[in-house]
């Protein structure tokens, strides 16, 4: 059943993949962000910091994606 040619061209793994570790450190190390201040639009730091990391991590994945395609 196995054929030798893969269906799609190989995806080059870029060294930029190391960037993908950043969201883990930034959002899983709780002492970084378990603080009430500074607030933003009324949000305590704890909340806006973690919400901010949603687009930031998406940008990091995008950078790696661009480097690999």
């Amino acid at each position, binding site marked *: *059943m*196995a*054929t*030798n*040619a*893969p*269906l*799609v061209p*190989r*995806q080059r793994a870029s060294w930029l*993949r190391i960037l*993908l*570790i950043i*969201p*883990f450190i930034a*959002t*899983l*190390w*709780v*002492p970084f962000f*378990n*603080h*009430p201040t500074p*607030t933003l*639009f*009324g*949000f*305590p730091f*704890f*909340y806006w910091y*973690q*919400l901010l*990391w*949603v*687009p930031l*991590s*998406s940008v*990091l*994945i*995008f950078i*790696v*994606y661009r480097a*690999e*395609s």
Partner: protein
Amino acid sequence: MEVASIIFAILIIAVLALGFGAARWKSGDLHQLDEWGLGGRQFGLLISWFLIGGDIYTAYTFIAVPALMFGAGALAFFAVPYTIVAYPILYVVFPKLWRVCAKYGYVTGPEFVRGRYGNRWLALAVGITGIVATMPYIALQLVGMQTVIGGLGITGTGFSAHLPLIISFLVLAAFTYTSGLRAPAMIAIVKDTLIYITIIVAVIVIPRELGGFGGIFAKLGPVKTLLAHPPKGSTGIYSGYATLALGSAMALFLYPHATTGILSSASSQVVRRNAVVLPAYSFMLGLIALLGAMAVAAGVAAMPQFAGGFKQYGPNFAVPALLIHTLPGWFVGVAFAAIAIGALVPAAIMAIASANIFTRDICREFFSPNMRPQSESQIAKIFSIVMIIGALLFIFGLPLKYAIQLQLLGGMWMIQIFPSIVLSLFTRFFNGWALLLGWLAGVVVATYDAALNHFAGAIFPYHAFGYTFPCYIALATFLLNLVVSVALSFLFNAIASDRINDMTVAEDYG
């Protein structure tokens, strides 16, 4: 609530009709399991985005996360880091799985495991883990729907009170049977559009009435707003929060419904692009979590008109009560329909995913190896109905707490297939039997630890070197699983390597 009920009913009926129509969409031969159970592996970026998003951010999520925020405060926000770190994992791991599965025609995760190790028993363990973890999850989708139907004022305990729910799910079973994965894919587009509209309106309108977000957090109070500082000699809730997020993220795409969503994409490129755009849902989930804080600030728990709802549904009633209290009736109808349709999409995909596993990894492998493609899709269709009816019986036959407890256990069991699927995409170091024993160790100890918690908590205080590390049971037992799998792989490979059974080749993983 009449306006709300009418809008709600119109939207639900429209969506159920759409489910039947979906069979003709991007049409294929629905007698093939690929076509019925994976929608023909042809969904592009946009449809996949709606499908996977609609699939993993479920109605139960939309009800349970704010309910936890309402009751416990900041801890509920673990859903945000959870759905942040899930995407680097998706990006690195699952395009590989897509490519191997597309090349060999695999429809399920367990099929990949069988191809990789030539070990049908390991594949069976992986498959059964998926089905068992999924059943209570479908049942909990019903709870999401039940809560909003209750919010519309249709309450009670008799058969007639359950009728809207039963009819919806029977119709769901029927269109899942006829349309397969195309139905939830099409409905997901409607569902998510409604959900995004609801959330955007809710976070603009509601805080204005409650004195802005500053006012909301002031009313939530300092204790609930942040995580408690760890006591001396313990990492406290800090490690609980982080491990809950990480362990949940590792298990997320291993759930059969998530794997099915990924495998239905048109290419591994679509999967990678989705890792970039799916976090939009995570942002929305964070805002949804805050609805729990808004419910505290609005004081809905003390309002007499909601006393019955809270009595029947507990903290799950927080969001419905908040929406009824603050939004106009017609919009409540839209919002509730969004949540209810949010139950139908994942429930359909979960039933389809379980049916794929039952057909390919249990029925064909163990009972009927020469099955024709037509009989395959027929068996899958019937099993999808069994899953949905099973979930209905689960909700009406057993106390709700069993579904919640089983879903809690489900996450702890699901992560145990991480070595068999995820690590196997990167290395063929492992031995199939070693993985099976590692899986067994993980499942048994996780269940035991959860029992020590009386099946009520996911975080267990592990002790080491005179220090206490509260940790998500899933993550701790995954480490045990990994140690057992690695150690026994060394041993078994030395005695008799099973590497020769690998049906795949090294280039598949390049």
